[in-house]
C-alpha cells in the first residue's frame, strides 16, 4: 500500500499541475474598475460588457467594484488601488488643477450633465423661475450646490432666493418624501426611481442641469502613469465598454438581467428605465458623429473653465492634460 500511495500522490500532483496550465496560458490582464457610487441601473453597460464576454474577448479580467463618490474614486486611482475609474470629469479637473493629481478622461459617459432637480408635481415647478423662494434638498459636499449659481444665471434667476437643506446622501429620499423641501437633487436617470417612490404623492417634475449647462459629467478616468504603462489595455477596455453600452442600449431587458446577476436587489423595471436615460446622455451630437465616448474640445474647455471658476481655483490646466480621444475606438 505504501508504495502505491507515493505514485498516487505524485499523479495527483501532476494532474493538478496540468489542470492549472490552461489558466496560466490564457492569462488575462486584471483591470480594477471602480464606479462612482453604489451600483445602479445606470451602470448596466459595464456589466453588459462583463457578462457578454466583451472584456474577456479583449483579454481583460475586469473587476468592477462600487465607488464612494468622486473624491474617493480619484483617490483610489491616484493611489493605485484602482486602475480605471468611472467618475465626474469635473472632479478630475479640480484634482489636477489644485493638487496636481495626474488623472485624465479617456471617454465620456454623461456627455450631458445629468444632475436634475426633482419636485413633487403638486408644487407646479416647471421652470427655473419657479424655483425662487423654494427649498432644495441635497447632500453635503454635493457639486450640485456649487453648480447651482451657474444654473441660476443661465435661467436668469436669483440663486440666493433658493434655500438648501443639506442631509446625508442616503437620507435625501426620505427627507424629500417627508416634504421637508420642495425639490431634491439626483441624476436625471433616477427619474424612474423617484416616480416609483413618489407614486402615492403624485409623481415628480424634473429640471435637468444639462439642458442649461454644456458641461461634461462622468467619464472613464485613468492616471497618466497607468495610461503610459498600459495604453493598449486602456484602449481595449474602452472599446469593450462602449460595445457593452451600445449593446445595452439596443437590448435593455437582457442587459438589466445581466446587471441583476451581481446585483439582485435592483429593481428590473427601474434599472431598464435608467439605461434608457443614460442612452440619452451618452448619445450626444458629438458621440453620434464620432462614436460613443467622444469628447468635444469646446465643451471640454467650457467644462474646465466653469469648474475652475466655480471653485475659485487660480491655477489652470491644459486641455490635453484632462482628456484625450486617442483611446476611443476609431469610428467607422
Amino acid at each position, binding site marked *: 500500500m505504501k508504495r502505491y500511495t507515493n505514485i498516487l500522490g505524485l499523479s495527483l500532483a501532476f494532474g493538478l499541475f496540468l489542470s492549472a496550465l490552461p489558466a496560466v496560458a490564457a492569462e488575462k490582464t486584471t483591470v480594477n474598475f471602480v464606479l462612482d457610487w*453604489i*451600483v*445602479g441601473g445606470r451602470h448596466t453597460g459595464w456589466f453588459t460588457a462583463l457578462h457578454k464576454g466583451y472584456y474577456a474577448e479583449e483579454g481583460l479580467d475586469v473587476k468592477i*467594484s*462600487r465607488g*464612494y463618490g468622486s473624491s*474617493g474614486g480619484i*483617490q*483610489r486611482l491616484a*493611489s493605485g*488601488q484602482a486602475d480605471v475609474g468611472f467618475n465626474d470629469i469635473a472632479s478630475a479637473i479640480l484634482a489636477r488643477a489644485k493638487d496636481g493629481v495626474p488623472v485624465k478622461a479617456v471617454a465620456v459617459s454623461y456627455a450631458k450633465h445629468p444632475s436634475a432637480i426633482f419636485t413633487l408635481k403638486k408644487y407646479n415647478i416647471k421652470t427655473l423661475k419657479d424655483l425662487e423662494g423654494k427649498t432644495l434638498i441635497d447632500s453635503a459636499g454635493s457639486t450640485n450646490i456649487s453648480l447651482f449659481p451657474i444654473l441660476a444665471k443661465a435661467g436668469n434667476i436669483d440663486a440666493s432666493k433658493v434655500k438648501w437643506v443639506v442631509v446625508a446622501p*442616503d437620507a435625501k*429620499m*426620505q427627507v424629500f*418624501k417627508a416634504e421637508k423641501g420642495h425639490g431634491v437633487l439626483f441624476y436625471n436617470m433616477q427619474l424612474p*426611481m423617484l416616480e416609483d*417612490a413618489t407614486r*402615492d404623492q403624485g409623481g415628480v417634475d424634473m429640471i435637468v442641469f444639462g439642458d442649461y449647462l454644456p458641461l461634461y459629467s462622468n467619464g472613464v478616468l485613468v492616471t497618466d502613469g497607468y495610461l503610459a504603462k498600459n495604453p493598449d489595455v486602456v484602449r481595449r477596455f474602452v472599446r469593450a465598454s462602449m460595445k457593452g453600452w451600445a449593446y445595452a442600449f439596443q437590448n435593455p431587458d437582457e442587459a438589466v438581467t445581466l446587471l441583476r446577476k451581481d446585483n*439582485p*436587489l*435592483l*429593481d428590473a423595471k*427601474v434599472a431598464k428605465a435608467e439605461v434608457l436615460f443614460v442612452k440619452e446622455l451618452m448619445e450626444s451630437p458629438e458621440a453620434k458623429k464620432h462614436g460613443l465616448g467622444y469628447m468635444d474640445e469646446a465643451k471640454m474647455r467650457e467644462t474646465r473653465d466653469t469648474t475652475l471658476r466655480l471653485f475659485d481655483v487660480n491655477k489652470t490646466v491644459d486641455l490635453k492634460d484632462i482628456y484625450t480621444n486617442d483611446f476611443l475606438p476609431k469610428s467607422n
Partner: protein
Amino acid sequence: MLRRVTRILRLYGPPAAAILAVIFAWHAVTAWFGVPGWLLPSPQAVIASAYEHRDLLPKHTSVTLIETLLGLAVSLVVGVPLAIVVVWSPFLRRSVYPLILALQSVPKVALAPLFLIWVGYGMPSKVLIVASVAFFPIVVDTATGLAIVERDLLDMVRVLRASTLQTFLKIRIPSAMPYFFSGTKVAVTLAVIGAVVGEFVGSDVGLGYLILVSGSQLNTAMVFVSLVILSLMGAILFEMVEALQRITCPWSVGE
C-alpha cells in the same frame, strides 16, 4: 419532566413574550395608523423581503460576522495586555491612558475613511474599525478589575510572602475576570456597530452595505431585515460571552 418544562418557561417565557409584544405593537402601528411602507414597513413586509432575498443574506451576514469577530479578537489581543500594562506600571498608566481616551473620543465615523485610505477597502480596514470601537471598554473594565482588588486579599498574600507575579496571576487576574467579561459584553455590541459603520463608509459586501443599497432604493423593508439580523447577531454574541462568564466565574453572573 414538569420541573424541566417550568424551568424552560421561566427562563425563556419572559423574553419570548416581550419580543412577541413588540412585534404585535409594531404590526398594530403599521396596520392601524396607515404608516407608509417606505417609512415603517410592517412585520409581514420585512419577513417577505427576507424570504425574497434569502439567498443574499448568508453571504452578507457572514461577512459582517467575521469582521465583528476578528475585530473583537484584535481588540482583546491589544486591549487585555494594555490593561495589564497600565495597572502594572503607574508611569505607563499616566502616559498611555490619555492617548487611549483621546482615541475613544474621536467619532469612529470620522476615523473610518482615514482607515480606508491607509489600509485599503478590504477586510483589514473593517477589522481595524471594529477593533478601534471595541477595545476601549475592554481596556477600561479590565484595568479597573485588575486594580480593584480587596485590600484584605492583598494584605493576606503579602503576609504569605507572595511575589508580585504570583499576586498578579493568582489574585488580581481572577478578581478581574468579572470586570473583563463586563467590558467584553459591552465591546461585543459595539463591535457589531463598528462593523456596520465600516461597511457604510467603505464596503461592497456585508449587512451595512445591504442597508445602504436598500435604503438608497427606499426598500425600507430590506433595511429592517438587515437591522433585525444585526440585533440578533449582537444579542447572540452577548449571550455567548455571558455563557463563557458563567463557566469561568459563575459567582459573578446574576440569576
